[in-house]
């Protein structure tokens, strides 16, 4: 579904991503593991077209070359990003933010039904539909960012730390929803600081180090890989795995 080849990105002299290749199929959750600064956020932004990459990349979505498209046309073609730091429209209401999420042509037909799904997922957004978004709590704004991306009816959904700031119960709800989104045939590319949790719902994962993919495997393989455990899963603290 999503195929990325030779993705390269530099900030000045600093090479943030080098020859990254990955793919995400319909109906699977793929996670990117890596330390802070490894390039995970840059990778998602580069795929979504919101940062300028070095020449030579190939990004194909459902067989179509989207490498040269601007960000808004990438959304039209079926790829949505939940950015780090929420990026909601603070002065608009919750409902308006969701409506904007459904702006791509591909999303307009099913808008009402999809909004109902989003509001079912986050009942708080229903209660707060008329509220100005910036006046909501941080966690509520995060829910809105995820909900808005879902409104675009994506085939591929990129999520940059969607659980940030959410309560433990809400994180479980969110992860349960991501599973349902997967079941509906959407492919998800997920970045989460808590690798244990993301491997808990992912089918596959890539390991990113200093902008280079250094490992790839099924979630189960990665979970039991000693190098991955040392680097990303932490030794001292038992991580709270989501009970599925």
């Amino acid at each position, binding site marked *: 579904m999503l195929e990325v080849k030779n993705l390269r990105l530099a900030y000045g002299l600093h090479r943030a991503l080098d020859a990254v290749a990955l793919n995400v199929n319909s109906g699977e959750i793929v996670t990117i593991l890596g*330390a*802070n*600064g490894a390039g995970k956020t840059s990778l998602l932004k580069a795929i979504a077209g919101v940062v300028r990459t070095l020449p030579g990349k190939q990004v194909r979505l459902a067989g179509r070359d989207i490498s040269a498209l601007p960000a808004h046309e990438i959304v039209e073609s079926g790829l949505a990003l939940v950015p780090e*730091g929420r990026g909601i429209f603070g002065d608009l209401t919750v409902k308006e933010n969701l409506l904007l999420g459904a702006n791509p042509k591909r999303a307009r037909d099913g808008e009402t039904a999809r909004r109902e799904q989003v509001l079912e997922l986050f009942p*708080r957004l229903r209660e707060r539909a008329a509220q100005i978004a910036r*006046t*909501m*709590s*941080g*966690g*509520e704004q*995060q*829910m809105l960012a995820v909900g808005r991306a879902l409104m675009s009816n994506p085939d591929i959904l990129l999520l940059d*730390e969607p659980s*940030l*700031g*959410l*309560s*433990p*119960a*809400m*994180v*479980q*709800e969110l992860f349960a929803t991501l599973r349902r989104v997967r079941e509906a045939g959407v492919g998800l590319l997920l970045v989460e*600081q*808590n*690798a*244990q949790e993301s491997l808990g719902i992912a089918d596959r994962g890539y390991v990113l180090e200093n902008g280079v993919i250094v490992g790839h495997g099924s979630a189960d393989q990665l979970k039991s890989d000693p190098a991955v455990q040392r*680097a*990303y*899963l*932490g030794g*001292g*603290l*038992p*991580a*709270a*795995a*989501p*009970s599925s």
Partner: protein
Amino acid sequence: MSPEGGTPVLEVDGLRRAFGGLVAVNDLGFAVAQGEIMGLLGPNGSGKTTALNLMSGVLRPDTGTIRLMGRDIAGLASYRIARLGLARTFQLVRMLDGMDCRENIKAGLAFQKPHLPAAEAEVRIDTLLDRVGLAGHDRRPAADLTYIDRKRLELARALAAKPLLLLLDEWLAGLNPSELMIGIDLIRSLKADGITIVLVEHVMNAVRALCDRCVVMSSGRKIVEGPTADVLNDAAVVKAYLGGVAADA
């Protein structure tokens, strides 16, 4: 309600703040003892950050008292509250990105009274950078820092005020497991220095590792208060907040 022994560093009573028809904080009361780490927990939108905003003077309460070392600070301007010994960090870190680490902390020192002589300020900045693990990074622009280093810098800026009480709003959110251990050790070392801390946090491992007691809010009200282990096993808390995550996971 009061923790045993000593004058509380912070005593909140009958605190209320509404936004239009929404009562974000409703009759909130608790006390935090000297040297304690108190966790402030609750579902998203339960009023935790609003409570911190009321304590730090970002917002004025409708009613209620907030006593810092016995003095009512409710409704004071935030800079006055900061001078009285209360410092805080924010959910989304906002540093002065065009400036380096040294200058960012200098900004924190600049508004204090009495002013530090310049030479002393430079020494103090070095101490603060070292304190949070940023020694040697003083000339790095804040914009170039990794996420955890930005968190460290924000903490150093807060510590520049020599706070008696430190409010941390999801300071550990977004850290990976190894960074989380570093962050927990750092907060624990602040407690060892005698700083009293109120911690708003969703990272349960950190709450278990750090908090002596917890207050749990829901819809603006306090629903449970007590020692951390008891609170996290409380049926109402598990239902409203933790979901299926067992307290001993």
